[in-house]
């Protein structure tokens, strides 16, 4: 009788320890997931800021100003446009 009891108790203890361990593991994995998600969010934010920066630099008003004033470019007159046919 006592053997059976001891056996059952040891199983109960082992399972309890298992619960603790898996709980711990779950929390560890969860916090890892959280960390990665936070990183993803940070990267997302950074991407947004870079896009913002890009579109600020590429603002058409700025491009036009630089093209006209610094580079001295001008729109081609219609008579000076050459139409090239791409052979298919």
């Amino acid at each position: 009788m006592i053997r059976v009891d001891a056996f059952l108790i040891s199983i109960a203890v082992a399972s309890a320890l298992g619960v603790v361990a898996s709980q711990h593991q779950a929390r560890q994995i969860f916090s890892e997931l959280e960390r990665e998600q936070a990183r993803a969010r940070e990267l997302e934010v950074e991407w947004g800021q870079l896009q913002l920066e890009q579109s600020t630099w590429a603002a058409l008003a700025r491009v036009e100003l630089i093209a006209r004033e610094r580079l001295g470019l001008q729109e081609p007159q219609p008579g000076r446009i050459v139409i090239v046919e791409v052979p298919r």
Partner: protein
Amino acid sequence: MKNRRSVTFNHNPLLEKGLPVWRPRLVLLGLLACSLTLVGRAAWLQGFNNEFLQAEGKSRYSRVIPVPATRGRITDRNGDVLAVSTPVRSIWAIPSDARLSPADTRSLATLLEMDVPELNRRLDSERDFVYLKRQLAPEVARRIADLKLPGVHEHEEYRRYYPGGEVTAHMLGFTGVDDRGQEGIELAFDAQLKGMSGSRRVIRDRRGQIIEDVESIRPPRDGENVVLAMDAKIQFLAYSALRHAMQTHKAKAGGVVVLDVRTGEVLALVNAPTFNPNNRSGLSGAQLRNRVLTDVFEPGSTMKPFIGALALEQRKVALDTIIDTDPGRMTIGRATISDVRRHGPLTVGGVIQKSSNVGTVKLAMHFTPDEMWQMFDELGFGTPLNLGFPGEASGRLRPARSWRPIEQATMAYGHGVSGSLIQMARAYLAFARDGELLPLSLTRVDAPPAPVRRVFSTETARQMRQILEHAAGPEGTAPKAQVTGFRVAGKTGTAHKLEGGRYTDRYISSFVGFAPASNPRIIVAVMIDEPTAGQHFGGAVAAPVFARIVEGTLRSMGVVPDAPVAPLHVAGKVEKPPVPKERM
């Protein structure tokens, strides 16, 4: 309970008498009831109704904290970012906790870019919570956090940036400090753009530091991106053309809208005066107004082609029917309608080309009010476009029963009926698309939508296109609408403004047209409100804006020129018109 044992020390005569049986029983019962109550209460708290205490216990260490979601981006049709949210921090204080040394106050004021007295005034506030500064850059906020000042806290917020600034202001609208849409696309598509913040449960220690993540209750859902039909390049072209015209003609306001004929997409929508959505202090209502969509005006002569088309459609006249407009005025009831100058006998084309009021009224006299009403209604006047844009105007089209003859006459040349500029532009789709109307879209559409209805026959639309091409030509009212390399078609409008029920000597000059005339790709509608620099005719004020926009837009869309230009030299042999790759 009589004690028969002789107890020598207890000879109290009172005891001798003995107690009544019920008294000790009562006391015992009382004690039993008390202990039962306690046991019952304990069982209740422990066993049956334990949620409350467990929740209380948990709340000492576990917290549910919100996880913010970002608002979606708005991009143009090619993916260029027009609006994006990025995190910023707001600094707030609990004034009773914030006991700062003068040195701390000074360094805080420097970081916040505030005056020391101003900061002190805020910190002396009676309230429990004051914002010191909202929407600071994260770097600055970090340096403030490093000062570790008591009673000074920060929290994360989102701020919306609009790299397009003034150019896209009216189209996009803006959001408030709480990152919710307040105007324009931001409001119209708020449900799609806004994210759903999530929440997660964490375990915090005594000092409020998160020591463990327990679970994610609801993951945050970021807002969806909105891809507009707008093309940033065309938008900028329209913006600079309109700004130029506003300055040249010292106008009060103006608007431009560019539509894609094949898909009904709104490629550009510009208003003037405009505002900078990134810095909205000191805005006036006039700047905020999206005139193209929300303001109705009497269009004037741009309405005439519809009357001409209806007359051709119902075979009331043929292309070569002569309409005598002499002597340049006519009387209906007690009112007189007159032309700017005498035009003599004209064909239908001539009436539109010379923009003769008398000729148009004579054409309109062929119809009953019901017939005219039905056409205006089919063209969309009096009905909102349902783009989902806030404050969209429907225009005014009174029921045909109430029209007096003079009203029917004035409506023929665009007075007494009103619409917004975008409604005018859309109505011209009927000419540009062989008689059909499309639903308009502010967002990019990938396949052309099904037409809403057919207003004119293909033949009528084609005839009208030719007439409108002449109207925008050297013989018409708008030779300045001409663009080198492309055939254009369109109609000018110069309408007296209606103020307090009377027509004034102030004008709205407009031009609505499309190009290339041989196979229309875009519709451009221009409206200039109160030009005051001397000229006020649509052909002089609005047509050049049209020309500038058409030239740039067609080039940027890669449309093949349909008008002969004299090339300086031709590379290779060019026999049939080349087909450049189309950028959609």
